[in-house]
């Protein structure tokens, strides 16, 4: 009789690394969101050459459908937490695995738009925003490779399976 627990086979470092990166993203997005709503808190960012945080964060592209991009970023990272909990990484449910990848990919899509807005439309770079973009990218890369290394298997039943296989061999 087989009483197996299907496991994802994801590397043990996947969850803690991703949660740390998510925490960094939350920290950066929180700072940008507070600076957006509270004008008394300036962004610590020297305006020099192409670097000008304020020009980026007060530009028309700093809002999407009237919602500040900083707030969307914060919501994105908060929504990322459940995908990277240890229990989620242990699960072999393909809906979780591919849902997590799709969620990360949506973030990358948004980062592409924001990089386009900075590089092509605004022609200024916001260092704090770039920090968020890099965090999103690194988090996506880690998620992709950890998912690639995850080969689902019946963790608690290797022995049982072997026995079954041996029975087959007997026959």
């Amino acid at each position, binding site marked *: 009789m087989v009483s197996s627990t299907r496991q994802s086979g994801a590397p043990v470092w996947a969850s803690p690394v991703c949660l740390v990166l998510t925490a960094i993203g939350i920290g950066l997005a929180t700072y940008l969101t507070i600076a957006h709503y509270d004008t008394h808190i300036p962004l610590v960012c020297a*305006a020099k050459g192409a670097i000008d945080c304020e*020009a980026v964060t007060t530009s028309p592209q700093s809002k999407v459908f009237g919602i500040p991009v900083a707030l969307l970023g914060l919501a994105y990272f908060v929504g990322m937490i459940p995908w990277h909990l240890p229990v989620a990484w242990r699960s072999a449910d393909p809906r979780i695995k591919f849902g997590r990848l799709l969620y990360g990919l949506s973030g990358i899509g948004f980062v*592409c738009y924001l990089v*386009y807005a900075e*590089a092509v439309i605004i022609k200024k770079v916001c260092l704090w925003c770039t920090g968020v973009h890099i965090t999103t990218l690194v988090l996506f890369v880690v998620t*992709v490779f950890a998912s690639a*290394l995850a080969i689902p298997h019946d963790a608690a039943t290797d022995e049982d399976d072997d026995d079954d296989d041996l029975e087959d*061999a*007997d026959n």
Partner: protein
Amino acid sequence: MADGRDDKGRTSTKYAAKKAATERIAAQRAAQQRADRKRNLLMAGGGVLAVIVVIVGIVFAGLHTKKSAGASDVLPASSAVSQAVATVATSSLSAQPDLSKVTGPPSAMTTPALKASNGLPQILYVGAEWCPNCGATRWPLAVALARFGTFSGLSTTYSSSTDNSAPHIPTLSFRDASYKSSYIDFDAKEQVDGNNKPLQSLTTAENALFEQYGGATPGQPGYPFIDFGGKWRQNGTSYAPTVLSGLTPDAVAATMGNATSKPGAAIQASADVFTAEICDMTGGKPTNVCTATAVVTATTALASLAAK
């Protein structure tokens, strides 16, 4: 026996077969897992590489378009420009303006004021991004308005580089700007962009006002046109746009606080005249602005300036 040997110590044939099968299956599984991992890693690497290529491509496109940027590019104002507008609005209030720099006079008018939805009297600005006179006028207008409220989303650009009279004048654009004030409403319409393509349209009431007082002739719209609550209007520039020739928007921002510089003197004096006109709209509010030295001087001079 538990180790697969019979009573005489001989290895059971059945057990050996089982062991061999176990090892064979384990080896097959391990090989399969290695193959799966290798395939997944290749796919992951390809996906990540594609994402990085897209991002690098976007940055490259940004660098490339920067090199070929024309005069009509409209970019969000740098923080230096936005801060300079707000700073000069306050710092220049106590100075004595050199009103001789105001070469484009205001005109008095008596027409019902346009009203915003919140009931505040409205200032209507109508201009074009290619227009050098608009380019010169936006700076003092922004400074004057910053004395009554706050701007956000200002842009910077240049007027047409092919205009013979005053090419490539560094300026602000109001196309994406929003303005908040407790005293007045500001409605800015950049009718066309730097390539003379339609940008922002006027309402029926605005268009009627513009047609009546804008000084437009067929094919020659009278840019810029500013209606100060039906009490005053500005037709054309308030000072010579060539004062700003050769400067960048950041350079104008850096110099307009200095009243001894040509751009600073012209922008501050024009801003004081605009402020006096706005004070006429607001009934002298706020008092710290409307009773300031620069504004009192401009208010006193309004009648004579209008008679120029």
